[in-house]
C-alpha cells in the first residue's frame, strides 16, 4: 500500500519492545509469568510425577531431590501438583479476564458514546456489582450455582466487567470530544464506524494494562475460592485447595502449605510487575511518578 519512496522509520513495535526491555523488573516479571504460562500448557507432560499418584508410604516427606517441594498427606508430589495446577489458574483467571475485557469494552464504549439513559442504567448497574465485596459476591454466586469451571469463569467475568467498562467509558468520553471524532460526524459516518474505527483503537492501551492487572487479582480470587472449597473440585489440583488441605499439617510439614502459597505470591507479583511494564510501554507518560 505504501509508495516505494517511503523512507524507513523506526518501527513502532521496536520502540515498544525497547521501552519494555529497558525495565528490568518487568523483564523479571515476564520471565516468571512465562514460566507459569508454559507450565499451564505443558505442565501435565513435564511434571515429574502424576499429580494424583499417591504413595502413602512417602506421605509428608520434606523437600528432597526426588520431591522438590516434598509430598503431601497422601504422598503426592507437591511440585507436580503445583505445575499441573497452573493450568486451572490460568484458565479460570485468564478466560474470566478476557471475557470481562470484551464485554467491558463493549459496555464502556456504548455507555460513553451514547450517554444519557443507557449510560445511567449501565453505570448504576456497575455500581451495584462493585458495591459488594468481590469475594462475598463470588461465594454467594458459587454456592447458588455450584462450583463448576463455567461458573467460576462466569463469576470472574461478572466481577470485572464493571471495572473494565468504567475504564473504557472514561476513555471514550474523553476521545469522543476530540476533533477527529467531530470530523467523522461532519463526514456523516455511522455510529458503529465512529465507535469501532475512530474511538476503540485509542482505548485499547489502557484496556491491556487493566487486563493484566485484573488477571493478577483474578488469580487471587480463584485461589481464595479454592481455599474455601468452592474452586476446582478434587482430585484436580488447585493451589487454593492445596493450601486449605495442608492447614492441618502446618506445624510438622509446612512445605505442603508454603509451596503453593509461594506459587500464588510469585505469580501475582510477577503479573503485576508485567502489568507495570506494559503500562510503561503503552503509556510512557502515565508510568512516571
Amino acid at each position, binding site marked *: *500500500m*505504501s*509508495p516505494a*519512496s*517511503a*523512507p524507513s*522509520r523506526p518501527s*513502532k513495535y521496536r520502540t515498544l519492545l525497547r521501552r519494555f526491555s529497558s525495565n528490568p523488573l518487568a523483564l523479571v516479571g515476564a520471565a516468571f509469568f512465562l514460566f507459569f504460562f508454559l507450565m499451564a500448557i505443558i505442565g501435565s507432560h513435564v511434571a515429574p510425577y502424576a499429580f494424583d499418584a499417591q504413595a502413602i508410604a512417602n506421605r509428608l516427606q520434606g523437600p528432597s531431590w526426588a520431591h522438590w517441594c516434598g509430598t503431601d498427606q497422601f504422598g503426592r508430589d507437591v511440585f507436580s501438583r503445583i505445575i499441573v495446577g497452573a493450568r486451572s489458574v490460568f484458565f479460570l483467571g485468564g478466560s474470566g479476564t478476557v471475557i470481562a475485557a470484551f464485554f467491558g469494552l463493549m459496555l464502556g464504549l456504548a455507555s460513553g458514546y451514547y450517554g444519557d439513559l443507557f449510560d*445511567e442504567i449501565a453505570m448504576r448497574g456497575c455500581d451495584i456489582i462493585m458495591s459488594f465485596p468481590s469475594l462475598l459476591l463470588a461465594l454467594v454466586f458459587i454456592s447458588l450455582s455450584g462450583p463448576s469451571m463455567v461458573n467460576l469463569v462466569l463469576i470472574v467475568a461478572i466481577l470485572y466487567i464493571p471495572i473494565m467498562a468504567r475504564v473504557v467509558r472514561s476513555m471514550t468520553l474523553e476521545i469522543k470530544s*476530540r*476533533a*477527529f471524532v*467531530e*470530523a*467523522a*460526524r*461532519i*463526514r*456523516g*459516518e455511522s455510529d458503529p464506524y465512529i465507535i469501532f474505527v*475512530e474511538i476503540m*483503537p*485509542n482505548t485499547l492501551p489502557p484496556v491491556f494494562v487493566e487486563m493484566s492487572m485484573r488477571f493478577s487479582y483474578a488469580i487471587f480470587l480463584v485461589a481464595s475460592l479454592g481455599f474455601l472449597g468452592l474452586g476446582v473440585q478434587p482430585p484436580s489440583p488447585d493451589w487454593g485447595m492445596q493450601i486449605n488441605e495442608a492447614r492441618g499439617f502446618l506445624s510438622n510439614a509446612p512445605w505442603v502449605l508454603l509451596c503453593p502459597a509461594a506459587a500464588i505470591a510469585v505469580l501475582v507479583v510477577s503479573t503485576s510487575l508485567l502489568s507495570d511494564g506494559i503500562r510503561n510501554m503503552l503509556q510512557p507518560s502515565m508510568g512516571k511518578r
Partner: protein
Amino acid sequence: MVKILDVDNLSIGYQTESGHVKAVRRVSMGISRRESFGLVGESGSGKSTLALGSIRYLASNGRISEGSITFMGQEITGHGPGRMSRLWGRHIGMVYQNPSLALNPSIKIGWQIAEAAQIHQGLAKKTALDEAIRTMAKVSMPDPEYVAGLYPHQLSGGMLQRCVITMALMNNPSLLVMDEPTTALDVTTQAVVLDLVSRLKEDYDSAIFYITHDLAVVAQICDSIGVMYAGELLESGPTKEVFRSPRHPYTLSLLGSIPKFEARHRKRALSGIEGMIPSLRELPSGCVFSPRCFMADDGCREMATRLGEIGPGRFSACPRWREIEERKKDIEQTQSYPPPEDETPSLAVDSLAKHYAPISGSLRRGAGRNLIKALNSVTLCVRKGCTLGIVGESGCGKTTLLRSITGLVEPTHGEVRLEDEPLAPKVTKRPRSILKRIQMVFQNPDASLNPNQTVAKCLERPLKIFTGLDRKGRREKILEIINSVNLPSTYYDRLPGELSGGELQRVGIARAFAAEPDVILLDEPLSALDVSVQAALVNLLFELQAKSQPSYVFISHDLAAVHHISDWIAVMYLGRVVEFGKAEDIFRPPFHPYTEALLSAIPNPDPDAAQTGIRLEGSVPSPSSLIKGCAFQSRCPRVHGPECSSVEPPMQSSGGQVRIFCHIPLGDLRQVQTSPYHDAVGQQ
C-alpha cells in the same frame, strides 16, 4: 550601567532518555535596572530554558555546561538550591503563563500573597496581609480588601494574573521573570495586564525579563529585545531599532510573518519562513538558521556564527548583516488575493440561536430556568469564494456558531441555508450531497487527527464517502492532495505522532479540502501554531481558495489575522453579532464600542505607533437569559443612556456595507473614534 542580570556565554543542556540535548548554546545577554528585556522565539527555541537557567531554576535534568551568570554583581553560577532559594522570591520574582496553576486553589488570595513577605521579610501574618493589600492596590486591583478574601476560583483569568504579579512584587524584587504571562488571556484582558507590566519597572525600580512568542507584545512593552532560534540568540538590541531595521535575516522573516494591521496589506501573501525549526538533536552545520535563510550561501552553511556587536547596544549573529537592507525585497510578497466579483450567497445563517439548560447533570435535566444563551439570533451570510471572518473573545459564541452550522449542535431557533436551500438542523439528518459541501478545520492539530490512522487513511475516508473514485483513483488523489498542501509524498503512510504541529494542521486542511467542498469552516486553525508556521498556512489557505473557490468561515480571537484574510468580518460578543460588514469598511469609524475596545487592545507590532487607551474592566458576563438590552452594556466605556440596559440595540447602517448594533447615533461615534490603521495614523 550596572546590569541586574548578566549572562555570559551560557550553555545549558538537558539529559534525556535518548541522550544529551544542548537546549541553549553560548548565549550572552544582560538586563539593567529599570529595563524590560523581551525574549522572543518560536516554540522549541530555548527561550524558557534560557530564562529559567539564568535564575538557576532548571528542571532536575538540566545542567549549565559553560558560561557564567552574574546577578546583582554576584556570581551565581555555582550556587546551590539552598542559596538560590534566598534569592528566589526575595530578589527574583516569577510570573507564569497559567495563573490558575500558579495559585493554590484552597488558600485565600490575600494569604497567598502575604506568604511571600512572611517568608522573606519575616513579617507577622497580619502585617504581611496589610502589606499584601497595599501592594494589590498599587497594581490597581479594584477593591483589594475584598479580592484578598476570595479564593482563586472566584476570580477571572486576568484578575488571577494580576494577583500572581502582585505576589511576585511583594518583596520589591530586583528582577521579575515573566514567562508568557498574557498568552492564556483574552485580548482585552491582555491589554490591561500589559499596561500594568509596562508601569512596573518605573514603580518598582526593577528589571523585567519578559518571555513571549508574540512580537507585538514585545514591541509594546519592552525596551530591548533578544531573538532566539534553536537555542541561540541571533539578534538583540533596543526594541525600536530592531523592529525598524532588523540585522538578522531571521528577525526580518519573523516580522514578515505577522499579519500587519494595515489596509494595504490585507489579503496579501505573507513572507513567512521556508522549512521548519531544526531538532536540537540534528542541528545544521554552520549558522543554525542557514537552511531556512533567504540569503544563505555556502559560507553560511559551513562557518559557525556567533553573536557580535554591530553597533552601540546592537548585536547580531549574522556576519552578512550589512546585506539585509538591500536583499530585503527578495522575500517581499506581492501576490494578493482579491475577492471574486461573483456576489451570489453561498452559506447563510438566519436568526440562529442556541440555548443550553445550565445544569446538564444526570437525572436533573430540564430543571434550569435561566438558560445559557450561547447564540442569540445571529444572521450572517458568506458569498461564494469569499471569506467571512468572525472575531470575538472566548465565550462569545463563535465556536457554537460553527458547530450549529455543521449540525453538530442543534440550534434552538433559526436556520442554516446553503445556496438558499435550508439544511436539516442535525448532521445525522443531512444527506451526503450536503455533507460533502461543508467541511471543517479544527483548532488543535493534535486532536484533529486520529493518532492511530496514517495520513493516507485519514484523507482516504472523505474520498471514499463523497467521491466515486476506486482504490487506485483514491490513491492518486491522496498523493495529489498531500502535494497541494505542500507536504512531501513520503508523508503518505506517516502517523500523526511523527508530524509537527504545522504539518498536522496541513493534513487537517487537506482532509477538509479532499472532497472539494463549497464551504470550509475554520475554527481558529492558526492559534495553536508558531508565527512562521501561521504565515505559511495563511498563504496556503489563500492559494487553495484561489484554486477551487470555496467560501471560508474563519473564526479567531486574533483581530489582525481575521483582518488579514477576510473579505467580510463579523464581531461577536456574548452570543450576538455586534457589528458586521465588509472588511475594508468595518475598521473605519464609526464602529461599535466593543470593536473599538478590541482594536485598541491588540498590541501593535510597531513600537513607534501610538496606542489608544480604551481598556475594558471586568470580565465577560455569563450569557444567561437575564441580560436585558445591550449585551455589552456592563463593560461598555461609552454607555449612552438608560435604553442601553432596557432596549435591544437597533441595527444601524453606516456608509459602506456595515451594520452596527448600538444605541449611540453613528454620527456621535464617528466624531470620537479614530482609525485604527497604523498607516492612516502615520499620515496624520
